[in-house]
């Protein structure tokens, strides 16, 4: 499973990527929407982990652009905001988008990733 993480906080996204790599995933990161588009065009990914709020563009808008390039992509959103429910740190909106609230437990993230890809391409 190839994962692209997109977040403008480099300090956050680089470390998270490194930790996922350590767990045997193929993970890369982009720190801007431009870079993310570039990477999606150049490489093939299965899953994109997107920050909901980035300078200049929202995560949901970026999702649309990326889907235009590769309709096969799956998405998980990370957010500093709570979305719907107070207690659960994971939630889903009406369109089936999955949201996780920062700061997120890495094991939680991996669990959600595995739920999105319940097939043979599982990570560790």
């Amino acid at each position, binding site marked *: 499973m190839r994962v692209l993480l997109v977040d403008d*906080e480099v*300090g*956050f996204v680089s*470390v998270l990527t490194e*930790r996922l790599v*350590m767990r045997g995933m193929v993970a890369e990161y982009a720190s801007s929407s431009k870079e993310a588009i570039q990477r999606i065009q150049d490489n093939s990914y299965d899953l994109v982990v997107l920050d909901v709020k980035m300078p200049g563009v929202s995560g949901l808008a970026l999702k649309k652009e990326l889907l235009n390039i590769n309709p096969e992509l799956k998405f998980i959103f990370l957010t500093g905001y709570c979305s719907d429910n107070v207690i659960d740190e994971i939630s889903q909106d009406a369109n089936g988008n999955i949201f996780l609230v920062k*700061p997120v437990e890495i094991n939680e993230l991996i669990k959600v990733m595995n739920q999105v890809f319940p097939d043979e391409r599982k990570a560790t």
Partner: protein
Amino acid sequence: MDPATLTNRIKSTIVNRWLRIKPIFASHPSPEEQLSYRSMWKTAILAVGSVAIIPLITITMVDYQVTQKAISSEFLLRAARVVSNTQRSIGFFLDERRSALSFLIRDNDMPALLNEKRLAAILANLQHSFGGGFIDLGVIDHLGRQLVYTGPFDLTDKVYTEQKWFKQVAERGVFISDVLLGYRLVPHMVIAVKNQLPDGTYYILRASVGIEPFQHLLSNLELGGHGDAFIINHNAILQTPSRYYGKFLGKSSLPVPSYSDHTEVLEMNTPQGEPLVIGYRFLKDTPFILMIVKKKAELMARWYKTRIELILFLAVSVTIILSVILCMATYMVTRIFEADQRRLAAIHHAEYANKMASIGRMSASVAHEINNPLAIINEKAGLIQDLFTFQKTYAEDAKLNQLLDGIAASVRRAGNITKRLLAFARNLEVVEVEDIDLVALISEVLSFLGKESEHRGIQIQVNAPEDLLQVQSHRGKLQQIFLNIINNAMAAMDDGGRLEVTVHPEVKKALSVDISDNGRGIPEEDLRRVFEPFFSTKTKRGGTGLGLSITYNLVQEIGGQIFVESDLNKGTRFTVRVPTRISMQEGDQNARATG
């Protein structure tokens, strides 16, 4: 019951009565505001009152004067008419007799009159024709000697030369005397006429005339009440009997009025000070003055009755007008006051909603901004942990691993706080009705105040049955309601207090939440007013007096009810009744109020 308790009870009854009718604007918490409503009230009463009452009083006063004048001129006129009619009768009586004598003296020459028999026949004829008036007749020559006399006395040869009346009749040709008693003690007067002879001498025919016809006439006058009619002469000697003003032939107690050749009416007081109305007439060519006297009080009796009616009418009208104005002014000012209060409350409610929205937005953005660095800390600590785990170098270093766990735990804690803040802010914006676990919601509110209560040593206890129903309501509003009440409770308690929250189901599709503290309590006179906007006991300490009024509004918006009971120095208990279902209408209202 001893007198002291009785007095106290009466006092408190009076105070209660007054509190019940006292207009609400009169107890406005701010003295300046109260003053402005009071002066508005006073101005309204003064303006409307004077416009209504001054013309009424003026017109009544004018009517009073006019009626008084009309009545008094009416009885003066009537008195004058009676005097004038009576005067005519008496004048006619005297004239008739004088004319009879004049006719006789001219019709009979001297020798005929000097014949005693003839004179007696004339007297008999006079008595026959004029009734009992004539008593006797006499003929007197120019020297004053009575030459012939006929009548009950023997007066022949009496000499009158020096008598006043003889001189007067010689001078004027006719004379009417005062009333005299005479020898027989029969009241009478003397009428004498003169006949001039061509040789320059003259003779006089003299008659005594009884006054019974006078008396009869006067006593038969319809005077009513204490009226009195009599005749006096120019020396105030009563010529006929009077009922009240002196003895017959004695001096009258009333003075002689000033001369006038017309009928006059005058008002004067008796020596005792009793006001009288006197009509009088000087009878022409006689010494007589006809007097008709009435007591003014009797004449005015009708006026007094009218006057009492007038005054009563005025008093009743003024009372009615004043009370209507009083009620209207109180009603209007109360309405204005209430409208002002509602407007102010609405403004402040809106301000409060704005403030809460701002707080919500700000806390959301702060939480978000903190979440990002928290996430970085979390990942970096996680990475270090990963490095330890995967590279085995420090895997066995318990101290380092402990430190990293500590960091992770702290991040989780900070994350929980920001998540709560975010949730709180978000709930403020949510207007949809949702299923809510009340106990969980209250616990969440309490978690905001957890640190404060810990520092101050306040015990918080939540009691709720296990199988509590959920309510369908507005999360944000419930949150604010409980936050406000619990905040107040915390402020009312000293350190080491005890706050108890009890949730229990009610029969009528509602849950009720009791929030009781053991703080200083609310005095009874304040208790009725705690939900009024701007009512605050801590205005000097930065309170706006809006907290509980807004809480009250919020409770109404979710279709609930709020009650308060308090014991001074023992504590206060707020009870909020939350309906399990909110009606559609209220939901709409809320959407507008919050939007």
